[in-house]
């Protein structure tokens, strides 16, 4: 089995730089979708987390519905919903934009929960101190609670970024020529027909950024925690 894979003609196309460039361009597209989505998700996630902790029920409630609904729905369903739904509503949304919107809906809901947990983990004394210094509720959130929560929850947010990056592969379902789709383009070419080799290489392309991010997440964990876990 290993001798087949190692000696097989399936690796021959990889002698050409053009194949590598084709795949690297796909990786770049995947990374770009991930970068845009994570940025939007953190911004919307922070807004939703703050809204969920607001005193006014009319603010708390819609934010709660948004978070609970979008983080409990399959991402692929959201992608198809945004893409085909917008087409039915005669909105011209391209496949990359549709995937970015769907990824943002899902991940902003997840990050909202992460940030909310972060804000709730800050001791009451800190919040009260800020309020007693004359800061308003929103000022306290903006300059004390949210920065502290983001710092504390940085490992969880980086872990979510790994999930998001892997999920960009779902863009291929809409025909976006990102990394996964390009893999299929290569191995569906009759002269190549080498899914084992191509999928191994592409898996590696996903693995490297994900693994590096998971190491980063570990390093971001508080020192005491890291020491305890050995």
């Amino acid at each position, binding site marked *: *089995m290993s001798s*087949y894979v190692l000696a097989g003609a*399936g690796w021959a196309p990889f002698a050409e730089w053009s194949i590598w460039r084709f795949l690297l361009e796909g990786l770049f597209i995947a990374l770009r979708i991930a970068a845009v989505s994570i940025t939007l998700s953190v911004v919307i996630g922070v807004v939703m987390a703050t809204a969920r902790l607001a005193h006014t029920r009319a603010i708390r409630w819609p934010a709660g519905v948004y978070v*609970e*609904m979008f*983080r*409990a*729905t*399959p*991402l*692929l*369903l959201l992608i*198809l*919903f945004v893409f*085909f*739904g917008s*087409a*039915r509503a005669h909105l011209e949304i391209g496949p990359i934009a549709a995937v970015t919107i769907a990824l943002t809906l899902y991940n902003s809901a997840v990050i909202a929960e992460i940030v909310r947990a972060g804000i709730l983990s800050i001791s009451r004394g800190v919040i009260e101190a800020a309020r007693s210094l004359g800061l308003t509720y929103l000022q306290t959130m903006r300059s004390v609670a949210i920065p502290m929560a983001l710092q504390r929850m940085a490992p969880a947010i980086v872990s979510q970024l*790994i999930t998001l990056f*892997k*999920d960009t*592969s*779902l863009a*291929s*379902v809409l025909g976006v020529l990102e990394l*996964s789709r390009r*893999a*299929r383009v290569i*191995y569906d070419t009759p002269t190549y*027909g*080498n*899914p*084992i080799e191509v*999928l191994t290489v*592409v*898996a590696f392309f*996903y*693995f490297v950024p*994900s*693994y590096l991010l*998971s190491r980063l997440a570990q390093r971001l964990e508080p020192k005491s925690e890291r020491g305890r*876990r*050995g």
Partner: protein
Amino acid sequence: MGLLGFAGDVIEQIRLHYPALLRGYWLTISLTIISMTLATVVGTVTALLRASEYRPLRYLSSVYVETFRNTPLLIQLYFWFFALPRLPILETHLPVIGTINWLLSPMQAAILGLTAYTGAYTAEALRSGLRSVDPGQTEAARALGLTYMQTRRHVVVPQALRIAVPLLTSILSALFRNSALVSVIGVVELLAAADRIQQQNFQTFVLFTVAGVLYLSLTLPLAWASTRLERRVARAQ
């Protein structure tokens, strides 16, 4: 189209297509239950191997966990379904097993893919549970005269599960959602069922809303349970 018109369309589509939608819903549930059961076995074995004294076993299990967690499920499903059959046919000359042609049905590839992916996450959840128990507890239990197995069973595992169970609940919820991906290799589960109908009658909003509500009927109770379990753990600490 108005909210009332939309509600009417929903009822109409459910009336017309409930057999196909229910079949998909049931397949989603079966896939999840089968894969979660298998993933729990795989995850437990992996977590135990990762705590083993033999370096090669530790190494192999962490390679498995890191590989399957750091690559997309979609690529893994493609691998099981499209790449595996390219391996040369294997004549094992063994009874029962016989010839292996590596060909998997969409359903088999789906279960293998979901199990392998979820197993890696399960192993991590169990490991973090085991690691959360202070080694001093094991030492204390041993000093009190409990055997190694007794210590594991009565002291370590119950405490480890307290940490692991909320994590496992969210893994189960993720599995429900991830099972939608097997539609790309031709398994007609809930999402694929809804998609096939909307491709024909263009009732996109209606059918995806119905599918979404059916998914939420499974994932929302789990999210709720997970929050409650987490709170219980937090209070116990």
